């Protein structure tokens, strides 16, 4: 239910900001794109709208903050929170002797992080006495109204109405403060109104995640600092990728240059390439255990096939006219390898390396989810078992940032090292 409301809010912000920015504020633009009469279907006319990107990110944080009651989001933007404070409702009970009496129940609904004591209430008149109890916000509590009444269950104490509305076992009555239900045995159950905000164990507010980040960055988590967790994951990726490239690139070259190698390894490479590395985790654990070796082997396998295929297509993709030109300029086989085939394959190898790094990063997190003592995946897995959702969220965000950083770094290296890519 809350999900649908969030979706609706999101769509409303999307459409509203589009209307405001594109229709009202930007007016007529006079750049080259605006001079084109054909923009639909012209890929070059579509560039990322900076304002849309900024609003998109701000929207995510706003919605996150608004639906978690974040202190960083102004109060008027908050979604209705859970009811906190004193709730009251009245019940009417009937005893065996046919008499009916009413009394008031006062429930102190308190934030779950705080202790609370039931408020003092005046017992009131009649055989049914006023009750008081405490319930945590987002929780529910059984209210044994008959406990302090003069005619208890042994005399047939039965609640027949709440706030004047009749109630029966299994039924419920909605009050201003929440829902009052009745169990099959006739005990009242008070569920304070939950509002639309998410409870911290489902979705902590952004400041809680940041606070966790600061805590863990200074104190560590489970005996390792944050940098050790993240650094270990990165280290595994780099080591696995390094070995994968070390074996995969020469293998790919051999497959691109020799029909025997091609014939021998093609079935293996083509079969292993579509096997998701995650599917190999159980086998790797059986063979190599859950220690470092197993993870390096897994990442090696994840990178190997990608690098082999990239190197192979880099070699096969060389234009025959370049090779012919080199031959008729007097180059030897070895010189053609060194000066034509290798440089020509570098763009493909870089593309492969970028894919392989991405796959390795995903695989290492998954492998650490399964079993590890240290690592980004282990951190979020361990935290999830203790419902430390803030750590889980923090971990996911850090994993995302690092993955994005790796990709940016690879793109940068590609621009610097193989500027001729795609310009043959």
């Amino acid at each position, binding site marked *: 239910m809350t999900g649908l409301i969030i979706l609706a809010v999101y769509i409303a912000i999307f459409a509203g900001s589009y209307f405001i920015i594109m229709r009202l504020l930007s007016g007529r633009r006079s750049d080259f794109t605006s001079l084109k009469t054909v923009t639909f279907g012209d890929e070059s006319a579509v560039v990322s709208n900076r304002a849309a990107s900024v609003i998109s990110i701000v929207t995510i944080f706003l919605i996150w903050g608004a639906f978690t009651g974040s202190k960083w989001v102004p109060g008027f933007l908050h979604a209705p929170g859970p009811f906190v404070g004193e709730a009251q409702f009245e019940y009417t009970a009937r005893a065996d002797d046919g008499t009916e009496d009413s009394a008031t129940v006062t429930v102190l609904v308190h934030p779950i992080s705080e202790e609370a004591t039931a408020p003092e209430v005046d017992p009131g008149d009649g055989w049914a006495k006023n009750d008081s109890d405490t319930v945590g916000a987002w929780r529910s509590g059984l209210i044994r109204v008959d406990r302090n009444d003069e005619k208890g269950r042994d005399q047939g104490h039965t609640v027949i109405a709440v706030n004047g509305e009749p109630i029966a076992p299994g039924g419920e009555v909605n009050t201003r403060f929440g829902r009052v239900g009745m169990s099959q045995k006739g005990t009242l159950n008070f569920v304070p109104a939950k509002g639309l905000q998410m409870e911290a164990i489902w979705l902590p507010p952004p400041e809680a995640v940041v606070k966790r980040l600061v805590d863990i960055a200074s104190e560590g988590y489970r005996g390792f600092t944050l940098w050790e967790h993240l650094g270990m994951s990165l280290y595994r990726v780099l080591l696995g990728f390094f070995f994968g490239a070390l074996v995969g690139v020469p293998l790919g070259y051999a497959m691109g240059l020799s029909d025997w190698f091609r014939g021998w390894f093609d079935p293996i490479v083509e079969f292993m390439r579509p096997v998701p590395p995650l599917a190999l985790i159980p086998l790797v654990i059986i063979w190599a255990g859950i220690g470092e070796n197993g993870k390096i082997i897994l990442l090696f396998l994840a990178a190997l096939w990608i690098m082999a295929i990239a190197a192979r297509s880099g070699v096969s993709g060389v234009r025959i006219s*370049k090779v*012919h*030109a*080199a031959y*008729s*300029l007097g180059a*030897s086989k070895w010189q053609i390898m060194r*000066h034509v085939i290798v440089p020509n394959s570098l763009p493909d190898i870089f593309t492969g390396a970028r894919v392989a790094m991405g796959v390795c990063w995903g695989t290492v997190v998954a492998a650490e989810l399964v079993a590890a003592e240290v690592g980004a995946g282990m951190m979020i897995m361990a935290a999830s078992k203790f419902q430390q959702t803030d750590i889980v969220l923090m971990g996911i965000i850090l994993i995302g940032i690092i993955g994005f950083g790796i990709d940016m770094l690879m793109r940068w290296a590609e621009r610097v090292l*193989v500027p*001729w890519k795609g310009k043959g």
Partner: protein
Amino acid sequence: MSGLALNNISMRFDLPNGGSVQALKDVTLNLAPGELMSVLGPSGCGKTTLLNIVAGFLAPTEGEITLNGHRVLGPDAERGMVFQQGALFEWMSVRDNVSFGPRMKGQRESKWAGNVDHLLDVVGLQDFKEKAIYELSGGMQQRVALARCLANDPDVILMDEPLGALDALTREKMQSLVLKLWKETGKTIILITHSVEEALLLGERLLVMAPRPGRIHKEYRLPFADMGVNADLREIKKHPDYASTREEILGMIWDMEEEIMGRTEAAQ
């Protein structure tokens, strides 16, 4: 015995379905050193196959090729090739491309630098020598290809439609350049083209080939290349012999194309 000699060259390609295609049949040809020959013919007449055989990229099924008395058995620096496009090394600068041949021979920079600089001057790329290949226009790239070939000082230069992808104006300038380089260097040049005008302008000798099987149909000896060395190519095009030869060759190729079409229709 100096010069390039092709003796009864035949080439047959085996097809995967068991059949075979006769790409060339009994091609015999002699070129003296310093001769400039253009080769013309309808598509599929085996022009490029012939060039690849002379370059040594393909071995003929029958016949043999000799250059200056020794048999051609594979690609070699004595036979340079200029390709239509895409044969430059885009990971090297213009200068590194031009000096590729000498460098592969293990020559020191001091030995080739002067010649490479001179060639860059000749093709007008001195200011672009440190640029990357992909920063150059198509015409400039072909000038690099020419310079690269010449820097290696081959005896024979083979050109496979080197100007085919250029626009008309650039093409005309390049044609003058080719003539100028031919006269200056005295190289033997075989130039394949599908433009009759280009074949007339850039052929001391002009070879018309016929298809299926690829063979020599007719050979001309023309004065236009010699005239073009010192004259405006556009003036030569006004020469009465130029126009009449052009019409004759165009008619010849037209008839061949008609015949191919007819044969294809009959086969269907």
